[in-house]
């Protein structure tokens, strides 16, 4: 098998990897904000629930979570869902990353000086306006470096999807490796992840620069 054929086969897997990446981001970023709100609530049940959720998500392997999410509907409820494999991957990744993002949001929100809230209050802003116009933009600037870290990890974590036989790129690379007894496809996969992350880091750096207009 020549390199071009390998690349072609890997190409299909790359597409799935990119899909998992973007869908997870789109879902986990807002979900994380929601969980961080729950985590910061004074109500001890809401706060405790959020704490437990974050604890479990961070405290158990993502690989295990993938398996649980994939098999739970069948073993717990006897449900067979069509084309569930891909959905399960997105679900597991989003639920897991939301927990990490929640803690990042919380660190950003709790680091905001109380004076910003007080200034907004005496100017008559309501709670939603205060958060959306005054607090969140500053929080985003503060947490961007930690978010970048997390996103880069996500790019590499997409390879874990192979445990439930999603044919993303890493799975494809391993299949070719096994069939052709060459580690070349795995090396190519490595280069792909590297380039992907290079682009991600570039985009995040651009965003940081854009938000650098104030201190």
């Amino acid at each position, binding site marked *: 098998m020549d390199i071009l054929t390998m690349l072609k086969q890997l190409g299909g897997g790359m597409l799935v990897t990119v899909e998992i990446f973007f869908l997870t981001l789109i879902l986990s970023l807002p979900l994380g904000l929601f969980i961080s709100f729950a985590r910061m609530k004074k109500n001890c049940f809401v706060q405790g629930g959020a704490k437990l959720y974050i604890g479990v998500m961070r405290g158990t392997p993502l690989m295990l979570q993938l398996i649980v999410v994939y098999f739970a509907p069948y073993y717990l409820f006897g449900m067979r869902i069509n084309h569930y494999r891909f959905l399960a991957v997105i679900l597991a990744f989003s639920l897991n990353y939301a927990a990490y993002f929640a803690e990042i949001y919380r660190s950003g929100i709790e680091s905001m000086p109380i004076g910003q809230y*007080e200034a907004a209050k*005496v100017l008559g*802003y*309501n709670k939603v306006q205060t958060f959306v116009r005054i607090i969140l933009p*500053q929080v985003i600037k503060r947490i961007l470096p930690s978010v970048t870290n997390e996103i880069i990890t996500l790019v590499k974590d997409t390879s874990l999807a192979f445990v439930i036989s999603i044919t993303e790129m890493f799975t494809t690379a391993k299949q070719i490796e096994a069939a052709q007894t060459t580690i070349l496809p795995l090396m190519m996969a490595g280069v792909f992840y590297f380039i992907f992350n290079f682009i991600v880091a570039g985009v995040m750096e651009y965003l940081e620069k854009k938000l650098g207009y104030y201190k």
Partner: protein
Amino acid sequence: MNLLEMNHIKKSFEGGLEVIKDISLCVKEGEVVSIIGPSGSGKSTLLRCAAMLEKIDSGELIYLGQKVAWNDSHFKSVYMSSSDKKKIEKYYGFVFQNFHLFPHFNVLKNVIDAPERVLKLPKKEAEKKGLALLEQLGLSDKKDAYPYQLSGGQQQRVSIARALAMDPKILFFDEPTSALDPELTGEVQKVIQSLAKERMTMIIVTHEMQFARKISDRIIFMERGKIQAEGTPEVIFGTGNERIREFIGRLQNE
């Protein structure tokens, strides 16, 4: 009519520290009142209670005859509903010791964002008003600058412009010059003085004795959570009260 009325206000912080012990205070339209006193005497807390940044434990808070907080049968304060409070918040502006400008907004946006979002003024109108205010406070050339690019004095003037843009009936100043270099306090004091000339109603917590003497209609001396003396600058500065003489003397010599 009294713009602001505070009756028998009591306030303790968690842990039981009683910072305000039964204070009553009335402010009429056009009046400039300064509150002086040693650190920890409860001056700032009283101001923050008036601006609803702190909840009072007991007593009455009244704006323009409208009861904002009152005592229940156990002498615990009850506040009006949050939506009614939002209306009351429009009566006053608050200037903080540390400015608390919004760092991600430029100067003009800091001034006009609340009028646009809260008072729902059309953008053009808010801008016109904002620019006029910046001009009045000598900040026209800074309208596109961001807060971090300004000196402390300029930042404090922006925060005064921001408060004025909401057309408040009364302005609260919480040690407006305490965070500034001595050379920058003058420019902020000048602004407050010109507001006093226009008969803006103000309550100013300050450590600057000469400034308080110059601009106030009335000076309140607070210590240990109580009003110890109250009167015109002449009365307070000419007092026979040893404690007040000592306090004023010490600060003036600094």
